[in-house]
């Protein structure tokens, strides 16, 4: 009995599966899970797995947007600072000691602000033709400054319970942030596979010159994708920041690096045209899990430092692996 050896087609399928980035990530993630559960069975406890998923949720949500930015052949490193400014704005709008707006208005205001900041990024890239790395580097610094201005050196500790429940509440026993993540993933799947916009994003990233000759609306698409990333960053802020009891000026620091790592580890090409959502989601899950693993290993303070180092290694590893996995590049 040799089911895989006899049929060349089956063999080929196995081979391509081995080469596929997604399969590799899935194996690696499973390996860590098995290893951790042998080492410390409480790792597999429902509450711990849920904590990992909840921690991964905002990363997954932003990654869905950033992946499309990379597929377009651009980059956005301002998402971390954007998260900071959105958290500060949300807090300031909702806090009783500040503007004291109704929680619903604060939510909608945060989303609109996210779209607005993203659209500014997109506008600078698309119409003023500034390289996206420069635009978003400027944004990264500027938004962090704005965050500090809004916070005014103070913390916001009195988020209204309605907002808090966005972060901590559950529906049918599952945290609300996971429901939101699921919704974002579904919308992204539709966008990538079944929408004309998605086809255009891949086409433009694949060969910008051909896209121009095909009459595709390049500038509008760029604007839309950056704005969409801003929107998703606002969504991620809404479901993750209220988990904390305190909003401070340091929220989202380093988030851009984490998200870029997840997207690149997930097999998205930095040069555009290639990107696969399942890979990116697995990347996000893996990166979050590694931080948890480090905590479990009781490295104490060191855990944060190690997680940075590991993040960097993953990015380099992912880029080095690129040539071998490139043949699996269908979106």
């Amino acid at each position: 009995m040799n089911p895989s050896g006899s049929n060349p087609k089956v063999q080929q399928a196995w081979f391509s599966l081995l080469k596929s980035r997604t399969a590799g990530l899935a194996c690696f993630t499973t390996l860590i899970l098995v290893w951790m559960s042998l080492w410390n069975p409480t790792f597999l406890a429902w509450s711990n797995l849920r904590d990992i998923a909840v921690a991964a949720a905002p990363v997954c949500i932003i990654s869905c947007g950033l992946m499309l930015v990379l597929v377009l052949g651009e980059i956005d490193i301002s998402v971390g600072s954007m998260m900071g400014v959105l958290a500060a704005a949300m807090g300031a709008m909702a806090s009783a000691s500040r503007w004291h707006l109704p929680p619903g208005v604060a939510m909608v205001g945060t989303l609109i602000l996210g779209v607005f900041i993203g659209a500014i990024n997109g506008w600078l890239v698309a119409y003023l033709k500034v390289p996206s790395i420069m635009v978003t580097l400027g944004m990264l610094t500027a938004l962090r400054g704005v965050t500090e201005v809004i916070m005014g050196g103070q913390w916001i500790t009195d988020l209204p319970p309605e907002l808090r429940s966005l972060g901590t509440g559950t529906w049918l026993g599952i945290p609300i942030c996971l429901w939101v993540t699921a919704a974002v993933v579904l919308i992204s799947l539709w966008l990538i596979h079944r929408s004309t916009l998605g086809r255009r994003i891949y086409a433009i990233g694949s060969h910008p010159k051909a896209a121009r000759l095909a009459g595709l609306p390049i500038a509008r698409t760029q604007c839309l994708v950056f704005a969409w990333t801003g929107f998703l960053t606002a969504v991620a802020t809404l479901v993750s920041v209220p988990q904390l009891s305190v909003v401070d000026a340091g929220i989202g620091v380093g988030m851009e690096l984490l998200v870029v790592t997840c997207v690149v580890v997930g097999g998205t090409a930095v040069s555009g045209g290639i990107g696969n959502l399942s890979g990116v989601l697995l990347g996000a899950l893996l990166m979050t899990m590694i931080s948890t693993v480090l905590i479990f290993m009781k490295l104490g303070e060191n855990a944060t430092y190690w997680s940075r180092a590991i993040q960097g290694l993953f990015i380099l590893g992912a880029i080095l692996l690129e040539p071998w996995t490139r043949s699996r590049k269908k979106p």
Partner: protein
Amino acid sequence: MSLLVAQQIHHSYGGTQALCDVSLEIEPGEWHALCGENGAGKSTLIKIISGVEPPDQGSVTLDGNPLPMGRIHAVEQAGVVAVHQEPVVFPHLSTIDNVFVGREPGRLGGLWLDRDRMARGARQVMHQLGEDLPLEQPVGELSLAQRQMVSIARALLNDCRILILDEPTASLSARETQSLFRAIKQLQAQGVGILYVSHRLEEIFQMADRVTVLRDGRMVGTHSIASIQRSDLIQMMVGRPLDASSAARPLPREEQAPALLEVQGLSRAGVFDHIDFAIQSGEILGLSGLVGAGRTEIARAIFGLDPIDTGSITMDGQPMPEGFQIHDAMDRGMALVPEDRQRQGLILPESVEDNLTLPSLKAFSKFLGLDRDSRGKAAHGLIQRMGIKTAKPSSPAQSLSGGNQQKIVLGKWVYRQPRLFLLDEPTRGVDIGAKEEVHRMIRTLARSGSAILLISSDMPEILQLSDRILVLCQGRIRGEVTGSQATAEQLLEWALPPERPDAA
């Protein structure tokens, strides 16, 4: 009334006048050819008509209605569709996605792609073209000819009134060309006007109704094809009678001279099979055959770019070591000039000088740096010697015309004085004048003692230049003939696959 009328088009890039007072009319169902040397303004005119760029002056009307100038998408929707010279395809997308991108069919107001309809439509248009392409594979994995077909299919899928084709057959084999012509004729019968650019004059005389000739951005004239001769057309294009003696080639040849390159039993599964041949110094060996017959792959294998399964390659009496690399081949005096010059032969954004000296950088290095003076001198010498028309050595290669780009690709190897040139389609997409120059250069190289393996799909070219011609068919050598005895008919017969080899 004419279907499409372009009137008094003026256009300039920077200070250079690219088009000056050019007018053109296309009737419904007409096959209108556009001729001229590279740099004559054909591409610019096409760009303007198809909406890639708005003209400085002038107008284009379709059915009497002005076209929205400079807006590709709107022009396409009005029914004017262009297939550009370099295939415009998206390498990471499948064939299906490629032919539909920009006008995908959707349900629910475009919110939900109708993938079934896309697959059906793609299959149908490929059938119309007589092509059997993998529809789901990323297009980047297809051959150049197949990519060109995808690009054409994309245009056919549009309900077009005017179809513009810029050298669509440059990378196509004879069979693919015929399928394309069949598809175009169908459109013609439906009243679609065709604007057709090609350097293959036999195609123009075979298919076109009228021809418009441009020279240096100006109109030379529009003529009915029946009223002119081939030589008239060439003369209108170049503005001078062609050197009639260029075809003659005296060739004193020593029969017993030792071979410079000897290839024995070269095989690679599914690509080529038991290839044997030898080239002497000073000989031009033509390698003919259809696109996909394995010609390019053989050249790449000899140069160490592709692996081989079995067989030996002997250069100068010494076998190449197993698994040798490109630099071994270069050290032994080989040079490969690839077919796809835009992607493999040139670094487009880099300067002419950088491109010319790239393979010989070692010669210009000194301790920790580059000897810029001697490099500049060498580049200057090559520019003169190859007759490269460039504003200055530091201009980017992409600013040059196709013919001049091709001269750079040849020139960068000439400096190393290789003894064996592997030339893959050296004049693809090059205008008549530049072609003559490239031919002259190839002869000079051979006369000065280099051996040349010439791969070409251009029948007259291979017949004119080669001392000996090998014809490849499906990876095997089907025939060999000396240059003086070869006829186009014989070469084509060998190149076409025998009917049903397995039946009988």
